[in-house]
């Protein structure tokens, strides 16, 4: 009998090799206590969180918590059912209303996660004979949505208008087409040139879906995302997003003005065949989304912190994935796997948690230490972080050959 696990042997050996060097597992961190959106206890030690996507710091917002507590008492711990059976409560409707108001769109569908929102929208919108045209660096949930569906999948070079145009030109003019873009790409923290890309998609008769997971809350006049800031709202057919970042809880959604949108509730399998979000979660989300409509101060602080971290790291000799600060993700380029893991561990020992990313999650085989900012990070925390980055970089010899 062959062991079904033997296909994982190479990965198991690689991990064992890293761990044998006395390095702790970067993918097995436990937050023993969480004190605020920016501080947790890890291994008994107070640690600054610099890799949580908790951009707007809504996880501990007193209004959000109060709404969740009330819903938990009033509606119970869970719905035990699908949105289309017994799992749509008043709170789910209120959450969808909050999304419609936030985005100024006529339809909103709440999924149990952002992953499932992409899985559902991508696999359902484009069917047999249709084409999906997606950016090469698309999130795993978009790729997985492609593989769940039956459309023909065409991939274009990351953020390249020229490549998108070339690939669209080769497709049959009469075929249905869905172009999938992201506002912010989460690995490098770069943003998409949506003005150009959306114009090309429209010129070729495609519908456009933009994933704004990392742009919601602080791009554009109303915080709707990069597509709003780029001024292309009228040409975007679907916006997908998540509650697991700026909104500060868990869940996913799609908003749209398409007149037939509501039919998706019956034909979108990742929406239909899973239990709906618990009442407390949708209550937290609705409250948070409504507060994010008027979060100008937090937005300004988040941008200020992001720019300072970006310029501070450059000043200290780090190589970053973007020349200027494009989003609230600041990615530090690392030379190889071993230095990345050692640097990540040195940061943790100094009391700063950042994300470590490696291929295949990253594009072009790069190794990254990814930082994401929170509007609640203080100026002192930022100074501490920069100081510790410099210390850790020196300790692992990152600047040795510079």
């Amino acid at each position: 009998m062959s062991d079904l696990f033997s296909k994982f042997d190479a990965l198991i050996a690689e991990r064992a090799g890293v761990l044998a060097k006395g390095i702790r597992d970067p993918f097995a961190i436990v937050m023993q206590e969480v004190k605020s959106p920016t501080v947790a206890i890890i291994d008994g030690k107070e640690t600054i969180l610099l890799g949580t996507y908790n951009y707007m710091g809504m996880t501990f917002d007193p209004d959000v918590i109060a709404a969740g507590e009330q819903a938990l008492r009033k509606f119970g711990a869970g719905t035990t059912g699908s949105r289309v059976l017994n799992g749509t409560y008043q709170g789910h409707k209120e959450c969808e209303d909050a999304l419609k108001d936030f985005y100024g769109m006529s339809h909103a569908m709440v999924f149990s996660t952002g992953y499932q929102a992409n899985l559902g929208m991508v696999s359902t919108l484009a069917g047999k004979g249709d084409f999906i045209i997606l950016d090469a660096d698309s999130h795993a949930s978009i790729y997985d949505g492609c593989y769940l569906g039956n459309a023909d999948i065409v991939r274009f070079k990351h953020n390249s208008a020229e490549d998108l145009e070339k690939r669209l030109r080769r497709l049959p003019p009469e075929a249905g087409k869905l172009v999938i873009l992201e506002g912010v790409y989460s690995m490098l923290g770069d943003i998409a040139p949506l003005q150009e890309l959306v114009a090309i998609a429209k010129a070729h008769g495609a519908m456009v879906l933009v994933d704004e997971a990392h742009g919601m809350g602080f791009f554009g006049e109303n915080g709707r995302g990069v597509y709003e800031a780029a001024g292309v709202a009228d040409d975007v057919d679907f916006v997908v997003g998540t509650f697991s970042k700026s909104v500060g809880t868990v869940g996913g959604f799609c908003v749209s003005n398409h007149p037939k949108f509501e039919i998706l509730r019956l034909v979108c399998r990742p929406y239909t065949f899973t239990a709906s979000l618990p009442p407390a979660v949708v209550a937290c989300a609705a409250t948070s989304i409504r507060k994010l409509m008027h979060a100008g101060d937090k937005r300004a602080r988040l941008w200020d912190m992001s720019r300072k971290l970006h310029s501070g790291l450059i000043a200290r000799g780090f190589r970053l994935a973007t020349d200027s600060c494009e989003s609230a993700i600041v990615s530090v380029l690392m030379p190889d796997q071993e230095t990345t893991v050692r640097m990540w561990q040195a940061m943790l020992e100094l009391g700063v948690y950042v994300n470590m990313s490696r291929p295949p999650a990253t594009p072009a085989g790069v190794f990254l230490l990814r930082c994401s900012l929170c509007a609640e990070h203080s100026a002192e925390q930022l100074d501490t972080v920069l100081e510790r980055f410099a210390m850790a970089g020196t300790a692992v010899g990152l600047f040795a050959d510079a």
Partner: protein
Amino acid sequence: MTDRAQVYARIIELIEPLNPKKVALTEDTSFAGDLEMDSLTVMDLVASMEDEWDIVMPLNMLPDLETVGQVADAVTRLVTK
């Protein structure tokens, strides 16, 4: 008119830079097994073949294309379509 022999020869040239271990390339050489290509490399190779012949090779075709010979057949079909 592009015939299969020409397509095959050009595919070999496109694979060469992605074959650091200099594995011998034949009709039966497999991308995942023999060439140890990861999925990103395979997708980039597909993009270069699309541009070479001005064709569309949807990614959902890939599971059926395991060897160099199978890819040459598929490209030939798409080019002469």
